């Protein structure tokens, strides 16, 4: 960087004080203070209380359950989302456009609606659930139901992270690998997948974070059973409802911290990759 360019950059930094100040002023009551409130209320009873509340079997269960669901959701959607993105990006077929729009809809649909429709489909009196019940299969009000809901809700995030990267890879990229002698799997493994790594990584983290925080659909399909299907957000809500604000905030603080790290990694990774 030349000396003048450096100077210019610094000057830009100096002028930034005003816009940065305005942004902070706006964000303070909007985002930063509510976040801080979580931690303030979580620790109001002191650290010992915080640990005690967190150590309760229900809190532990809900955190572990949420994490497991988030891992499963991220893993399944990584495969499913990548495959869908690949098909949508590489093949031209009738109905491709409508499909491309449809798979993105879960973002826009209220999660409560997602929960309701899943219940109406897979619930014991639902369209498909009715057929499954005699077989003893009951996906709703069970971990499977929660997983289904989370897969549905987070699917677009995975797709949205992977597809643009795939779209950017020109078709001759794969063809080059084919002519060199790589079969389809080798081409995917050594040529496509490494190129997708960034998108896949951010997609997984986004999915994971969204799954951790999912509430609307989960509350409907899980049956909200303590120590069975209660995710961390449901636990928080239940505790809040019951007036145990400290317990609610303790788990909320853990979730917020986890999310912080996830987005921290996400940002660091994507920024480092940026050219």
């Amino acid at each position, binding site marked *: 960087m030349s000396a003048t360019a450096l100077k210019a950059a610094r000057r830009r930094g100096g002028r930034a004080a005003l816009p940065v100040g305005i942004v902070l002023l706006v964000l303070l009551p909007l985002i930063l203070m509510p976040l801080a409130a979580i931690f303030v209320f979580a620790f109001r009873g002191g650290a010992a209380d915080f640990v005690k509340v967190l150590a309760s079997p229900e809190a532990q269960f809900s955190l572990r359950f949420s994490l497991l669901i988030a891992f499963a959701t991220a893993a399944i959607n990584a495969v499913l989302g990548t495959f869908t993105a690949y098909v949508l990006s590489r093949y031209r077929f009738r109905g491709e456009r409508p499909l491309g729009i449809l798979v993105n809809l879960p973002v826009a649909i209220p999660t409560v609606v997602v929960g309701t429709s899943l219940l109406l489909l897979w619930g014991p009196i639902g369209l498909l659930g009715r057929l499954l019940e005699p077989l003893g299969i009951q996906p709703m009000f069970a971990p499977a139901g929660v997983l289904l809901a989370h897969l549905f809700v987070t699917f677009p995030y995975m797709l949205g992270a992977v597809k643009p990267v795939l779209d950017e890879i*020109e078709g*001759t*990229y794969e*063809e*080059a*690998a*084919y*002519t*060199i*002698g*790589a*079969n389809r799997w*080798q081409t995917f493994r*050594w*040529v496509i997948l*490494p*190129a997708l*790594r960034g998108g896949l990584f951010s997609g997984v983290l986004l999915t994971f974070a969204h799954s951790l925080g999912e509430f609307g659909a989960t509350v409907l399909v899980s049956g909200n059973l303590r120590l069975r299907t209660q995710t961390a957000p449901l636990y928080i809500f239940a505790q809040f409802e019951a007036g145990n604000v400290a317990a609610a905030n303790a788990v909320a603080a853990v979730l917020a911290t986890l999310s912080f790290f996830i987005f921290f990694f996400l940002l660091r990774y994507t920024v480092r990759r940026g*050219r």
Partner: protein
Amino acid sequence: MSITLDNVTKRYADQVTVDRVSLEVETGELFVLLGASGSGKSTILRLIAGLVLPDEGVIRLAGRDVTHLAPQKRDVGFVFQNYSIFRHMTVARNIEFGLRIRGVAKAERRERREELLDLVGLGGLGNRYESQLSGGQQQRVALARALAYRPGVLLLDEPFGALDVKIRAQLRQSLKEIQKALGVTTILVTHDQEEAFELGHRIGVVDRGRLLEVDAPDRLYESPRSLYVATFLGAGTVLVGRCRDHRVALGPLTLPIPADVPHDEGDRVRVLIRPEQVALSASEPPRDAPTLGRGQIVEQTFSGAVRRTRVRLPSLTGVRQVSPPLPFGEENVLLDVAVSAHSEPPRENPWVVLEAWHVLRQPTPRLLVCDEGAGLAPALELARFLAEAIDGVVTVLGVAADARRQDALRDALAARAAEAGLPEATVRVRRGDPAEQIAAEQREAPYDFVIVGAGEMESRWGRRQAPRLLGEDLVGRIATPLILARGRPRKPERVLICTAVGEPGKADIRAGGWLARRLGAEATLLHAARPGRKPQPIVQSHLERGVATLRELEVPSRFAVREAESPIEAILAELQEHPHDIVVVGAPPPPPRGFLRGEHVTRQVLRQCGCSVLVVPQGSW
């Protein structure tokens, strides 16, 4: 490893991209496929690599049939236009990729990689990523990567397309050396004739999916067989003169016709004159020099080594210019001449002397006849007259409703063609909707004229619509002149060219004039004017230029202006007074999809005229 293509065809959604291409490339040869963009040359390359599978034909590599073999197993190296270097791999890993896939040991890989980096002149850059390389370096990496596993065949798709001129020249040179050193059979695709000339041991020229000619660069330049190759490769003027006593007459000058160019007395023969084959001299040349008379300099452009000069020749009777196309209304030949920049700029009215020339072979006009039942007889009859007049070949197309009737239809058509005096006609049978199938056939193997009968066909949409003429359905679907044969079969003697239709068309005058000349018929140029309104000056001048064009074609012609409420009335009135055999009308260019709608004049003419009709789509001639 030799490469053989045998009648390879590739279609994309009814569009023929590669049309019956046969080609043989010998081991160690550097072969160049040259063509304009969209000509299908890249598809030929992709077919050889196996990235695209052919619909018909056979592809062999070293004699082995690989037509349906996966690209991985063909043992080819492919360099893409955009290089497609793997971005997340270093240059070294890119080059080693093919070896890793083949499970080559690490030490051997490294050795080979270094060897290749040296070969392409990238020594020491093995640790770089794609984004750290210049365009030329990327191209070298792509080449090294494609050569790493010692493929039997190297395919390069416009490898220098994205580079600037200087680097292009360098890389061309190094590619030439590498290819020579390795002796790998190579096909290179390009649109750049200079590149083709510099690199190719042989060049194949591709146009609209067809491999037109294959030959060594110098032979292709000096003695092309087809007009396309003559004009695509290098500059030049193509003139048509009449054959007299085994010589072609260009005004006062007659040039010998080589023995290997079949010709008849009175035939029109095309002569290619390259700019550097013409000398302009201020003084009168000796008597025995082939002189075209004193020209007039129209334009001069200095371009380094030569001075590009355009000379208008004096009027040469019986000579027509085919290429480059003359400005509309221009009656004299405009000859392109390259004058050495060292010599004096030519004077105003230099003598034009030919130092060399090349006589082109005649293309054979192709006629497609298609109809069913009653409509077929007049169509075949007319086709016979036309085929005789233009020395064309006839293909009879049948469209069967289902597969079972295909064979029966083929036999019946062959019998009827023979009956109509066309025993040598080719018979083809397709399946489906007639108009659609004719359009598809036309796309796959372009014809010069499509001839249909005037039989009515049942509407595809059931009884609610009036029955339509097959011709009506074709207008707007095919971009080829279409003849609707109708009435008593006889040799057409009078052609009515209606310029009344819409924009004064040029194509209809040219096509009608061409046909009239071939048939030895006379032509009437008709213009319909609104009653009481004087024709606009632009119409007047258009008609005059039209007559000039007809005169140029040596067609006896006159023009008529009729007052009528609508063009169709004018046409019908003219036909009433002076019977004609063929009415020529223009047609709007085919819309991207869909058909001619509404009561367009073209449609009225098709339906209401009692004689045959030639419909010339805009821009088809």
